[in-house]
């Protein structure tokens, strides 16, 4: 596929940059919010996902408003009116041969889209407004907060400092923060950004809402950090026949948060058919990396190191051809095409963690995973449990990983079995060995299981079994339910490969620790 071509439409004496993607039977014009950059948006995973989804059912027309992104710059002291900017939409439609299009206005793009629909109903197939509003001061920021925003933007524009105002859920994502900083720099100069913000503050299209006479669909995130959801509720009341859907989430930009949910809704509204459930399940290796040590390091040092580790994680995952699948607190999840890559990446992550000075424990599992959305499903849950189960510095894999990685030169040692609630059979485990050893020529006899492979709690249970105590007595002594004790006993027998409680008692006697009997 050729790179997406950027062209320029003439609107008065200004050139407006635009792109056309997709082969759908109807046109969809995307009117972006505050700032945009046609080239840069394809570099963000969420943004390109959204555009790919939309262009799968439409001919998607994208543009940068005058004064922003790749379009001509304008004198920031004499910014165009909303009407002039709206006319840029018409100019771009003319250039692309679009006689009639569905208009998608996001955030600040919504008032422009509404004005277009009211002015050119014959050229508006339908209107979709995401996180929109009709009056800036009422639903986005009161005047005093706007001044503070503009002042802050004036001193820190281009550093990504505006991100918390738009997507607080992404501030800890350093990769995205860097992208956002570039997004600011490449979308508008500091003076233009301040002027744009001031101009947007003047937006008030409340009076024309009643004149919109095209099918209208409104989407707003319930906890939107930037635009009060009441803004869309007001639009729903005032635009004849408009329908509002409120969805969960707080990040404001349309390309952050659950992008697929937004795309599904838009597709269903515009095509009249529900989006074909994108059941893209693929066979993949999931690597779950867990870091810990908060208690030892203290909060400040921990947060510095964990951020540093996350940066390393993103880089290393990318270098091994993996994809970031998401994070769950201190669990980081990445998806790889093959298990060997996942394991190699895990080995380097272990080194990175050691260098940075945090404890790491990792799990790798192979199975079918959903391509869409955050990591969920059985494969992800198993990989997460492996990471939870792995000891400091270990990379614990299901045996399947080792079998599939045969011939890769990686070496694994047996690591027993683990019983997981969701699996009928205990899962056979292997552990990645740090080094590839030459020799021995013959396979070593499997090491007899050591009590060290038992958790602290399991060791306690074993010694109580050795004392001849029943499950009920052990439960009482350890303040656990009998069911939990039974589970511990089952795990112990599995891990030690022992047939009975009596054998476990004998084992405990043989392996008494220094404090033992």
């Amino acid at each position: 596929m050729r790179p997406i071509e950027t062209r320029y439409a003439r609107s008065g004496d200004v050139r407006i940059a635009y792109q056309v993607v997709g082969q759908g039977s109807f046109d969809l014009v995307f009117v972006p919010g505050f700032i945009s950059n046609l080239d840069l948006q394809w570099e963000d995973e969420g943004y390109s996902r959204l555009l790919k989804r939309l262009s799968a059912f439409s001919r998607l027309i994208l543009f940068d408003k005058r004064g922003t992104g790749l379009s001509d710059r304008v004198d920031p002291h004499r910014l165009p009116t909303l009407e002039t900017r709206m006319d840029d939409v018409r100019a771009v439609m003319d250039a692309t041969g679009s006689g009639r299009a569905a208009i998608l206005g996001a955030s600040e793009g919504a008032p422009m889209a509404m004005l277009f629909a009211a002015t050119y109903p014959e050229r508006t197939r339908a209107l979709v407004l995401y996180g929109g509003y009709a009056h800036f001061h009422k639903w986005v920021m009161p005047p005093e907060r706007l001044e503070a925003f503009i002042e802050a933007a004036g001193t820190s524009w281009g550093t990504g400092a505006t991100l918390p105002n738009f997507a607080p859920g992404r501030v800890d994502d350093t990769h995205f923060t860097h992208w956002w900083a570039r997004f600011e720099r490449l979308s508008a100069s500091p003076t233009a950004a301040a002027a744009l913000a001031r101009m947007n503050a003047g937006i008030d299209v409340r009076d024309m809402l009643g004149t919109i006479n095209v099918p209208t669909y409104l989407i707003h995130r319930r906890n939107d950090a930037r635009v009060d959801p009441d803004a869309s509720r007001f639009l729903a009341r005032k635009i004849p026949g408009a329908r509002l859907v409120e969805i969960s989430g707080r990040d404001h930009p349309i390309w952050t948060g659950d992008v697929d949910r937004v795309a599904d809704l838009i597709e269903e509204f515009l095509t009249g058919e529900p989006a074909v459930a994108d059941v893209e399940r693929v066979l993949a290796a999931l690597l779950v990396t867990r870091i810990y040590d908060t208690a030892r390091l203290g909060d400040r040092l921990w947060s510095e190191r964990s951020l540093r580790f996350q940066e390393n994680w993103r880089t290393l995952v990318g270098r091994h051809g993996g994809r970031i699948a998401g994070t769950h607190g201190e669990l980081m999840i990445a998806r790889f095409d093959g298990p060997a890559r996942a394991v190699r990446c895990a080995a380097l992550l272990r080194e990175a963690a050691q260098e940075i000075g945090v404890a790491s424990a990792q799990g790798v599992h192979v199975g079918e995973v959903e391509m869409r959305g955050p990591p969920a499903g059985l494969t992800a849950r198993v990989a997460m449990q492996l990471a939870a189960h792995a000891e400091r510095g270990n990379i614990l894999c299901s045996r399947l990983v080792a079998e599939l990685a045969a011939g890769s030169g990686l070496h694994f040692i047996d690591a027993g079995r683990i019983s997981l609630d969701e699996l009928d059979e205990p899962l056979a485990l292997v552990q990645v060995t740090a080094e590839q050893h030459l020799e021995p020529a013959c396979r070593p006899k499997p090491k007899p299981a050591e009590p060290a492979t038992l958790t602290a709690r399991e060791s306690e249970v074993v010694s109580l079994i050795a004392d001849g105590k029943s499950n009920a007595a052990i439960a009482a002594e350890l303040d656990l339910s009998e069911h939990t004790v039974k589970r511990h006993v089952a795990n112990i027998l599995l891990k030690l490969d022992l047939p009975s409680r009596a054998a476990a008692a004998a084992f405990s006697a043989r392996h008494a620790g220094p404090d033992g009997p």
Partner: protein
Amino acid sequence: MLIKTQTVDGAAIKRAIEGRDGKMLSSFYNDDAVVRVIDRNNPPSKPREIRGRAAISTFWDDICSRAMIHKVDTTIAEGDSLAFTQACAYPDGTKVFCAAMLELKNGRISRQTVVQAWDE
């Protein structure tokens, strides 16, 4: 009352498509007609299906609203089957080429399969 309707043949289709006459095109279909579109986003195992005259009208209205040039080149008719090729160009130079196979029933289109490829 008798309503005079346009006979559906290669010449009529050519005239309607090249004249971007969505209304005329929609009138060529039976009420329960099906149009199947196969292209990059709608592969052969999962073609896009547009069912019924109302949906087909919207489809043609959308396409005919585009200020582009359509040229119907080759039309072949045999019994109740009709086939044609169509070359299209957008004002920015993007070209689209389609081949369409049609089945007629009672003089109207009942089934149409379009295979299209776009410049990209």
